[in-house]
């Protein structure tokens, strides 16, 4: 619960001038392809749908070159960083002052420390590989240029996210990746379902952003102004602008703004958006900031807990945790490289990165940590359970991603920051491998994603099969690949943590409980991954003929799935993941430049044949990533084995300086738990093998499904969460909006029109009074006056006399008013 050393010093900054190049290259690539890509692609008189033409070469050369250049600069930066003393590894570059208003001063600045360096290397490295993969995978795509432009744009945004020196730049990236993700999920926008998936991703993420923004504001406020003088209670109803808000904080330039924050012990103190400044003032206890933050409460809740949890809401959105995970499975509508890059390796880890980046804050609030870890654990097991019964290979991987992200949050939640980050890294490799492997399979099986129609692919796609297997071993957690080391560290730390809390009071049982949940989830992970492996690669190929039985097995499955089964393979395009979309998809031309004839011709050769191995761009990338999945295990060899701290932990230590107090545990116990981890993986593996290997126990499976039909249906339908959202969130929103719109148009505007109508009505009454009422009154008066001498037959008077009555009556009124007035 304390920082590693109490004599922490401010970070020493090395100013460099090339950091901006890292995001710049992808930005240039994105811009060129966005603006000129279409022209370039057609430059050599090629049709848009044509496969791998020279125009397309130009397009992907630009994109890949940009990525490679970016990666090269990142590697250069890595070596420069490495050359620095480990405590002072901090490269920084300020480009310009973005905005200054009072104490809020934000620079457009980049920084690289050990953590962001790692992220940059993953993003650019894995990113480059996936770009290369895409060359093969997207070869037939008419809107090739658009794809690469989006992909580069994503990398640019992701680099802003991880390299941002402050919350603002990070948030630029945060939302930028959301945009890129939206664009890529909805890449085949002519399919409304896919477009809707993109929209869903963006909007759900906005829920997270809402929490993120509020958390950020709370943090900014918590650090704000003359905080010593202010009790930790927010004013929210009565308006009392205070002097320090109004006067002292009025700064116009960055320099003035900086001058407002008095340095305390050499550290700038006060509200800041800058990570480094934040870290300095919080971790250096002499400033008193930490004390202030810990003691502050808002609405009766610890300020830090609230900040932590709100920021975590942001992470929930981006990193697909309960209950905001719903967009991620749908995001599989995007092309598979996108799934690999964005929805597995990089973007979805942004939340983990953020929590790790703010470790010094989270560690101050056991409750926030507890919730993060708990939600991570619940997500892990929840998503894993859904993954059990999915038939869409990408869906399985999607739920697996959600589940693995849960593991990462267990890590960063319990305080095992390096373990969480390490899992992030390992996951980037094995999940990228798996996704790309699945992409390769899909390509090989002519855009089929249903595992029931695969099988036996080990014969046709050896490279894909082996890389997929390696990655499966890694994710399942056998100690021969990287996944074991990261997951095991996380679970061990979870078990041994006694400092977590939920409602402000320490809850020692929480750590072990999370451990148990995590272990079960790990077993499940192993099971569904091997299940997918066996269903896909073993047994006989069921693509053309062998699917009848499987189909019968799921006769009670949703009708849409059945339809898919009946309409195999005859689809024009790459990832046709979403079962209900299939029918529509088949007919939809995919791009504005699409010419259906040419398109079908280009595909003609593929359809209906046996599966085939993918082109070299794909297999090479798969091989590299699979190798990475194994080799990165060396970054995390446990101390138990090697008696030195794991390489990555050591590397990250200056950044992830918030160390929690782990109790000393006997080595034997650690060994035991590692054994338990392996056992869990083995159990999953054995179970999957027993049921799915070579498709041999199909009957038993069917019987089981029949028996647990209710449960099966519930899980198969993903616990009806989407339906729940529709009923609980979307429907009320729409109803409210319709209601308010009605109110606005009918009531409010009606009132305005009513005012006009009333005015005109009064005007007409006014006329009517003259016409009828005065006449009538006059008639009455006349009848009385005339009644004396004349007959009642002649009642009417002339108009002029009406006027006179009015005039005299008016005069009378005026006289009376004279007296009525005091």
């Amino acid at each position, binding site marked *: 619960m304390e920082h590693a050393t109490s004599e922490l010093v401010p970070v020493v900054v090395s100013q460099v001038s090339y950091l901006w190049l890292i995001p710049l290259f992808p930005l240039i690539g994105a811009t060129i392809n966005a603006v000129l890509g279409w022209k370039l692609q057609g430059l050599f008189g090629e049709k848009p749908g044509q496969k791998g033409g020279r125009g397309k070469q130009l397009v992907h050369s630009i994109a890949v070159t940009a990525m490679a250049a970016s990666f090269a600069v990142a590697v250069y930066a890595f070596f420069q960083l490495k050359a620095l003393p480990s405590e002072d590894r901090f490269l920084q570059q300020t480009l310009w002052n973005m905005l200054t208003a009072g104490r809020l001063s934000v620079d457009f600045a980049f920084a690289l420390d050990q953590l962001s360096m790692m992220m940059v290397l993953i993003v650019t490295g894995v990113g480059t590989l996936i770009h290369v993969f895409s060359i093969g995978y997207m070869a037939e795509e008419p809107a090739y240029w658009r794809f690469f432009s989006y992909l580069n744009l994503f990398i640019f945004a992701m680099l802003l996210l991880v390299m941002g020196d402050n919350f603002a730049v990070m948030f630029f990236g945060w939302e930028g990746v959301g945009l890129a993700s939206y664009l890529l999920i909805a890449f085949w926008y002519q399919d409304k379902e896919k477009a809707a998936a993109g929209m869903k991703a963006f909007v759900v993420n906005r829920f997270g952003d809402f929490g993120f923004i509020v958390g950020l504001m709370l943090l900014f406020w918590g650090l704000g102004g003359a905080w010593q003088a202010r009790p930790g209670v927010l004013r929210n109803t009565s308006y009392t602008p205070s002097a320090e808000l109004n006067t002292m904080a009025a700064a116009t330039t960055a320099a003035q703004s900086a001058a407002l924050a008095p340095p305390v012990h050499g550290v700038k103190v006060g509200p800041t958006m800058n990570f480094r400044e934040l870290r300095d003032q919080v971790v250096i206890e002499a400033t008193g900031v930490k004390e202030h933050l810990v003691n502050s409460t808002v609405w009766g809740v610890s300020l830090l807990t609230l900040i932590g949890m709100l920021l975590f809401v942001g992470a929930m959105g981006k990193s697909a945790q309960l209950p905001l995970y719903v967009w991620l499975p749908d995001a599989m509508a995007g092309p598979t490289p996108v799934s690999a890059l964005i929805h597995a390796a990089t973007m979805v880890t942004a939340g983990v990165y953020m929590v790790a980046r703010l470790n010094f804050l989270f560690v101050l609030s056991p409750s926030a940590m507890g919730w993060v870890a708990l939600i991570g654990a619940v997500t892990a097991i929840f998503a894993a359970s859904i993954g059990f019964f999915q038939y869409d290979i990408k869906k399985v991987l999607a739920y697996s991603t959600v589940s693995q992200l849960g593991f990462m949050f267990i890590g960063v939640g319990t305080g095992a920051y390096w373990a969480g980050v390490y899992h992030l890294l390992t996951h980037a490799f094995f999940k990228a491998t798996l996704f790309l492997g699945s992409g390769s399979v899909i390509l090989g099986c002519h855009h089929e994603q249903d595992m029931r129609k695969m099988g036996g692919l080990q014969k046709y796609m050896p490279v894909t099969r082996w890389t997929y297997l390696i990655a499966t071993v890694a994710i399942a957690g056998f100690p021969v690949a990287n996944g074991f080391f990261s997951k095991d560290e996380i679970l061990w730390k979870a078990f041994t943590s006694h400092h977590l809390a939920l409602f402000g009071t320490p809850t020692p049982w929480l750590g072990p409980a999370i451990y148990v949940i995590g272990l079960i989830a790990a077993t499940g992970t192993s099971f569904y991954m091997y299940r997918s492996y066996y269903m896909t690669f073993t047994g006989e190929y069921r693509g053309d003929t062998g699917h009848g039985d499987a189909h019968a097995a799921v006769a009670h499955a949703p009708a849409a799935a059945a339809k898919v089964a009946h309409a195999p393979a005859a689809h024009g395009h790459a990832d046709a993941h979403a079962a209900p979309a299939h029918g529509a998809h088949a007919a939809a031309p995919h791009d504005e430049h699409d010419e259906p004839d040419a398109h079908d011709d280009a595909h003609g050769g593929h359809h209906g044949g046996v599966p085939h191995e993918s082109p070299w761009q794909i297999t090479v990338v798969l091989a590299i990533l699979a190798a990475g999945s194994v080799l990165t295990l060396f970054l995390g060899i446990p101390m138990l084995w090697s008696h030195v701290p794991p390489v990555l932990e050591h590397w990250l230590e200056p950044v992830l300086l918030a160390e929690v107090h782990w109790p000393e545990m006997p080595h034997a116990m650690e060994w035991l738990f590692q054994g338990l981890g392996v056992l869990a993986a083995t159990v999953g593996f054995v179970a999957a093998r027993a049921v799915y290997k070579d498709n041999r126990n199909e009957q038993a499976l069917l019987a089981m499904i029949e028996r647990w039909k209710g449960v099966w249906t519930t899980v198969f339908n993903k616990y009806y969460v989407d339906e729940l959202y529709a009923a609980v969130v979307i429907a009320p929103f729409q109803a409210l909006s319709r209601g308010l719109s009605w109110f606005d148009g009918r009531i409010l505007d009606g009132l305005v029109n009513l005012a006009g109508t009333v005015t005109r009505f009064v005007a007409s009454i006014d006329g009517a009074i003259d016409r009828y009422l005065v006449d009538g009154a006059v008639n009455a008066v006349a009848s009385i006056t005339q009644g004396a001498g004349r007959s009642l037959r002649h009642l009417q008077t002339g108009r002029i*006399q009406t006027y*006179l009555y009015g005039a005299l009556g008016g005069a009378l009124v005026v006289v009376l008013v004279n007296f009525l007035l005091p």
Partner: protein
Amino acid sequence: MQISLSHFLAVGALLFSFGLVTVATRRNAVGVLMGVELILNGANINFAAFNHYVVGGISGQIFALFVIVLAAAEAAVGLAIVLAVFQTFKTIDVRAADLMRE
């Protein structure tokens, strides 16, 4: 019985009221004009009476004289107009003149 200011004023007020009632109720335009004359003469009586009882001098009398002159002029103009009304409407019933309404 001593005739005092009050009596004159009462007569004046009565004339004024009769004038108003006449104007307001007569259908005959000439009758209406006569009502106007009554009103004016009510005022005249007041002027003369006030002059005699309250003010002194001749200012009220002179006022009344002017009013009489003007009343004659007004009657002339009024009758000319009534004549025009008769020529146009073939009646001097003031009810006839209600062409213009709101």
